[in-house]
């Protein structure tokens, strides 16, 4: 208990110190303030090796062994700078992270060389969450930008924690590292949970809540028709194409005329997440079927609309719930 408290206090102090030392920014050019450097475990082994070479050389009065030892020591010194300057050449930029569902993975683009016109760093670079052992390896010799795989946590809008970037280039004698805050947020939608679609009548038309306007089944397949140039490719009935060499498109019933509100029922905190998950599913279904829908989260109401942008807006509102005041920029 005490230990945990101490740990938390220590972490807090550390965070405060880091926030002062390496302020959050979208684009981070590494420099003297942000880079930490210490000999790695191998660095210490190497130093031990130098010492034993020195002892051996002295005992055998062997000048060549001594020179070898001094050369190795000099390389240790030179590498302090080589590691630092290589690492300082990194100019990292994290593009906005696409939103995703809870516990899924998204990829964010991390640019290693945002300051162009310059040669970038060499060697492998490890990226991990601050205070976490697991890391992703990026080879800066191969790529200038990399798709960073992020494992999304539970629903919500989270600040992206500091990322630890480290490098052992060139000889692994030193570990250069930094903890960067890219000043971005993770927007995590609730993971959709299958359920019945429930659209409530538009409140301004009909005050009577709870009346069901429409309940279209999911993905109501209507039939096939001839393919017309310009049809969506994922509507093409590929089975038929393969069999008959005739292009047919699958036709789905359109519910564009239907319109209504998705509502978050009054629930206790225990079932809240589940209800939000169901709403997420319904939003997706409505959006897929081109239904004009609005979202009513009690405190926050989104007017009915269609389209991808609307869907994202609604899901973001779910992610932010119950915080309905902050306008979250993606």
């Amino acid at each position, binding site marked *: 208990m005490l230990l945990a408290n101490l740990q938390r206090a220590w972490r807090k102090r550390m965070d405060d110190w880091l926030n002062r030392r390496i302020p959050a920014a979208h684009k981070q050019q590494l420099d003297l303030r942000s880079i930490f450097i210490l000999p790695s475990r191998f660095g210490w082994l190497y130093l031990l090796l130098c010492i034993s070479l020195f002892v*051996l050389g002295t005992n055998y*009065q062997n000048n060549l062994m001594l020179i070898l030892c001094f050369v190795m020591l000099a390389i240790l010194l030179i590498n302090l700078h080589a590691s630092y300057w290589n690492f300082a*050449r990194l100019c990292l930029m994290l593009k906005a992270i696409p939103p995703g569902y809870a516990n899924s*993975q998204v990829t964010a683009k991390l640019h290693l060389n945002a300051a162009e016109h310059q040669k970038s760093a060499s060697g492998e670079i490890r990226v991990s969450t601050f205070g976490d052992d697991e*890391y992703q390896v990026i080879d800066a010799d191969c790529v200038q930008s990399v798709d960073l795989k992020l494992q999304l946590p539970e629903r919500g809008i989270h600040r992206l924690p500091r990322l630890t970037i480290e490098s052992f280039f060139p000889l692994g004698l030193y570990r250069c590292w930094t903890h960067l805050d890219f000043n971005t947020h993770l927007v995590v939608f609730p993971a959709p949970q299958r359920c019945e679609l429930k659209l409530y009548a538009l409140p301004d038309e009909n005050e009577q809540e709870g009346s069901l306007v429409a309940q279209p089944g999911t993905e109501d397949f209507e039939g096939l028709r001839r393919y017309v140039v310009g049809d969506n490719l994922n509507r093409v009935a590929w089975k038929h194409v393969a069999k008959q060499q005739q292009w047919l498109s699958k036709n789905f019933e359109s519910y564009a005329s239907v319109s209504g509100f998705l509502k978050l029922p009054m629930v206790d905190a225990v079932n809240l997440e589940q209800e939000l998950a169901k709403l997420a599913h319904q939003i997706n279904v409505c959006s897929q079927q081109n239904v004009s829908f609005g979202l009513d989260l009690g405190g926050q109401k989104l007017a009915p609309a269609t389209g991808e942008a609307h869907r994202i807006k609604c899901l973001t509102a779910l992610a932010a719930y119950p915080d309905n005041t902050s306008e979250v920029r993606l």
Partner: protein
Amino acid sequence: MIVATTKPQSAIDIEQSITPFIMALAYIALVFTMLTPVLSWITVLAVCVVIVRGSFYFRDQQPQIALRTVNLLAILAAITLGWFSLSLGLLLTMVNLLVMACAFKLLRITRRKDLTQLFASLLFLTGCGFIFEQGLLHTSIYVSITLVLLCSLITIHAPHMSKRGAIKYTGIQLLQAMPIAVLLFLVLPKLPPLWQMPTAQGAKTGLSDTVTPGDIAELSQSSELAFRAIFSTELPRNNQRYWRAMTLEQFDGKTWTRSPTRRQITRQYRQLGRSFTPVYEGEFWDYQVIAEPSHQTWLFALDVASPSANSEFGVNLGFEYQVYASRPVVSTMSYTVESYYNMSLDQTLQTVDSRVNLQIPSNGNPKTVEWVAGLVAQTDGPSDFIDAIQRYFLEQEFSYTLRPQPMPKNPVDEFLFNQQAGFCVHYASALAYALRLANIPARLVTGYQGGEIQSDAVISVYQYDAHAWVEAWLDDRGWVRIDPTAWVSPDRIDFGLEQAMREEGSFLADSPLSLARLKNIAAFNQLRLWFANLDYQWSKWVLGFNNQQQKDILRQIFGELTTAKLSVIGLSLVALIALLLGLYILPMMRNRSLNPLANEYRKSVELVEASFAIKRATLGPEDFLQRVADSADNASTAVFAQITEAYIKSEYQPSPAQFEGIKQLQQLRRLLRKTLKKNR
């Protein structure tokens, strides 16, 4: 956990990556430079392991050697090595163990840690290589191996760096490290050995402390350097150059060894704290000897020597007039000697010397015993007796050969009466035995005779100069040197072994490629001398660099060394290293442009932009020139037009000369800056 882990590098990936393969190559190169100290079965093991490694790298084979297999093999090998270690001695056992351990580490590399451990072991092994070989050739091999090892480290942390890039990177680092290392080497004080280290037994060619006729004949096939002497007085003539190494006083009818009685006496003297300090008088030669590592204690000096050490090793004079080091010579060492060549060797106790040197084997060589008894009866006194033997050698037409017949039984009889041909040891051994039979104290001295004059003051002595001669105690003169070889082959003494062996053609017959054999071809001889000189400078300034030289150099630069001065030197060393490091960093600090030409142009553009408050944004060079013409004065526009033209010429026109373009742009930028300033 926000950053999801990608698949970590698997054991197979590490096994098949290039790093272990590069390390394997460095390893096998290392083993091949140490063929003498490394046991042959371990060498075979190393070769096999490297082949296995290669097959992993070239994907011929899946790397699937179980840890248990490796461990089992390692235990077996360790037991075998333990068996051999009884005869190997500690140092060689340790080196073999290290070589073996590296081999087993190479067999199974599944983690990065394995690679770094292997690197450390291999680097240490490289250091150990210097125990056995310190020549220029081997040093350059070891430097290359170090380079390769560093490269292998880079391939761990930057697997996609080009191989040339990696070699260039480490090469530059190694070059940068050299000046720092040299500074440290020159200035850091040389410590005395911290503790006694095990040495290799018989790992080197050279004299040995037991001599059987035939031994030195083998040595005569080696053109390896034994030592060098640098004279500050005039050089002794060839026939004066008898470099004494040790004195053998015990004879068993076949083999000469050090006398146990003598050992006992020496030990007693040492306990009493008595050392041999003859009264020196007369003229002397003053010279410095740079001895190659022999892993033995004996050193080399002429006549009656007064040695003084100039390193941490003590150099002493023994009661048999021999010079020896207080520890085995494991690396090149130098010492200074004054040799008094007109002195008699009569300052030791005659009683002791006579007692020791009249010892004869109780049986064997019956013909010789009979023959000597006859001669003693015919002659009058020791000198007459020696003359009689000389006469016998000459009358019987004894010959000097490097290829004597083996004489397993009664060797002296066999030599004197049947073969009548032999090498120096045969003559010396027979003569010393005969003298002892005639009740004249006599002993065998081994060492080197002659040597090649390399430059005005330097004599190089090679293993093929090894020689043995006799000393006899003549009552009025003390120990007198008698060299029976000189009777039968005066050439050997006056002109060296090569001259003496010209007819027989056996000089270095076993090493046809030795440069020393090609002395007759002028160009080759020139080359050989040049190499010898280079090697000499190497030995003198690098291998033999010791406290004395260090002090001399520091004194030359800083004058008399006081404590205050020493601390200043220490501080300036630190400052100098920091300065060097700063120098190395400068290129790293500069933002390295991918395109220096465009960068130059950019700089000029920035000047113009700042002066006229315009922005290039994404305009091309010609369009921007137009923009500049619109807002700038004529003089600046004219200069900028030149800049634009030069840039377009180098960047976009066919066959551009980039480097010249950069220079031109730099000059023009200076002009632009001036013009802008003038027109402000």
